[in-house]
């Protein structure tokens, strides 16, 4: 009995070693550094809350952080509002057409992130596709700077880039709904709207939350998109963290902000988990 038990423990430890070395240890070291202090590019190794006090006491940082969360929530909301109908539409297709369309919807995931960013930048710019179209339709009489190098541009770009991450889980949730439930709903006298609202929507809710969570976490940590299309007003906490590490060489402060961002993402995950678990399926 005993040897087998120890063998089991050994296997467990070996298996746990990989995630510990690759995930837990780096995060742990980050958290530790965030309690140190930087003095002229020198890290002073004594525990202090200096970085956290600095962050919450300074509106420049706190405001950027709150603004970033708001932006991410907007990205989530728009992504879900746009992605859900697309996923629903794909789900309504029959046979092989359905999977072809699904493939088309997720193809952007196989493309380079930077390529997508440049493409969007050129489309949203002064002489870009969007302005050209609005001009030729007569909606604008001169090219507008409305779409690039501001917070709005960050929002639009993030939604376009992260859309596949909402479409996919929502589609999978929709597809898991047995057809007989939809037949039963109609059989009991419900119209299309009632069936959607009372059966399809609640049953696809977990997938929708999963998609929203993906987008939220990805958008929260994204510092390249704001850098590329955000201009001066599209400043996010990701960019601030990046500058602390890359430009200011204040690693402890950067680590503290990264830790706060990490906890924010964790809170998002827990809230999503709570939302799903409240629903009995």
């Amino acid at each position, binding site marked *: 009995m005993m040897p087998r038990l120890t063998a089991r423990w050994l296997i467990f430890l070996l298996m746990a070693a990989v995630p510990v070395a690759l995930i837990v240890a780096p995060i742990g070291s980050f958290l530790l550094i965030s309690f140190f202090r930087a003095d002229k590019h020198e890290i002073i190794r004594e525990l202090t809350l200096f970085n956290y006090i600095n962050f919450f006491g300074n509106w420049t940082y706190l405001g950027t952080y709150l603004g970033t969360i708001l932006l991410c929530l907007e990205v989530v909301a728009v992504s879900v509002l746009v992605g859900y109908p697309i996923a629903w539409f794909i789900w309504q297709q029959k046979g092989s057409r359905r999977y072809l369309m699904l493939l088309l919807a997720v193809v952007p995931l196989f493309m380079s992130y930077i390529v997508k960013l440049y493409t969007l930048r050129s489309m949203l710019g002064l002489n870009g596709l969007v302005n050209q179209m609005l001009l030729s339709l007569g909606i604008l009489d001169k090219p507008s700077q409305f779409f690039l190098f501001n917070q709005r541009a960050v929002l639009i770009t993030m939604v376009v880039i992260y859309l596949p991450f909402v479409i996919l889980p929502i589609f999978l949730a929709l597809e898991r709904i047995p057809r*007989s439930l939809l037949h*039963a*709903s109609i*059989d*009991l*006298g419900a*119209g299309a709207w009632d069936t959607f609202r009372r059966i399809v929507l609640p*049953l696809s809710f977990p997938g929708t939350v999963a998609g929203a969570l993906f987008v939220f976490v990805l958008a929260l940590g994204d510092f390249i998109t704001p850098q590329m299309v955000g201009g001066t007003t599209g400043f996010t906490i990701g960019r601030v963290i990046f500058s602390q590490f890359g430009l200011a060489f204040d690693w402890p402060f950067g680590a503290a902000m990264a830790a706060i961002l990490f906890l924010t993402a964790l809170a998002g995950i827990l809230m999503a988990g709570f939302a799903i678990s409240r629903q*009995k*399926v």
Partner: protein
Amino acid sequence: MGLELRNVSKSYAHQEVLHPLSLEVANGEFLTLLGPSGSGKTTVLRLIGGFSEVSGGRIFFEGKDITGAPANRRPFNTVFQDYALFPHMTVVQNVGYGPLVQRRAPEAARKLIADTLEIVGLSELQDRFPAQLSGGQKQRVALARAIVCEPQVILLDEPLAALDATLRRQMQVFLKQIQRRIRTTFIFVTHDQDEAITMSDRIVVMSQGRIEQVGTPREIYFQPRTHFVAGFFGDNNLIPGTLAGPDAVDTALGRLPIAASKQHASGAKVLLAIRPESLRLGAGKVSIAGEVVETTFGGALTKLLLRCKKAPDITLNMRLAGNDRASVLDIGTPVTVTYNPADAVVIEE
């Protein structure tokens, strides 16, 4: 009046899965569509329910043409094979779904739902979710959800297929009781012969997209009109032969008497069908000699398999009461059996 199917057919991609068929169902009747898988019985149910469009023919209800009406505009409700309960709703919400989406007055609906739960015996479980119910309980919810809508016809698609044998028998009795109580037409689909015989007012036997025979359980069982129907219930004895006159058939076992029939011409190729329980030990007007090749004691009944002396390739199934001393026969024992000509049925090949 009731429900009427007139020359209804169904094809998928140029393949006719249901050949034109006509059928009338009286109000309050318990009608069973019986057949093996692929016989088209579920297709008929789906056409009646409005889940599938007819390729030809028309469907009438109370004299009104409902062929083009969608499922939610027909006064029918379905109990699905996998129950199709809404997993995110409690029992009472599932049952209340119909009244809710049909915009019934909430007060009246509440009373109706409570009464229905009472009828199917689920009042105590009303706040459970489907995942917390047993198979039989789910079945009751599915039934309650249909009858709460007060439909004119309830369609049941192999509702007992997923239940174990004991529960199945209980549910058969239960379904029949409910049907008698609410006096609604039940159209029941099954592939189980015993289920069909014990529950139905009338049975529609189907095979390969066609109706083989329609009749009461007794008619279907004792007066099969086709080879398929004769062979579908129990281990019927089917002996090929030619009609030798109005009251005899020439077979490999000699000339066997039948009840006088004017339906078939002399010389016609026929099958003689004799139920295992119609064969008796002993000599009579007709005697068939043979020997026992197999005997199975099954409690109430003992099954015997006999090989005929005159034609060793013909075997006969026989049933004797288990408490009959004479049924204790060793393999190889020579026996003589007889039957009442009135119990023999002639089927044209």
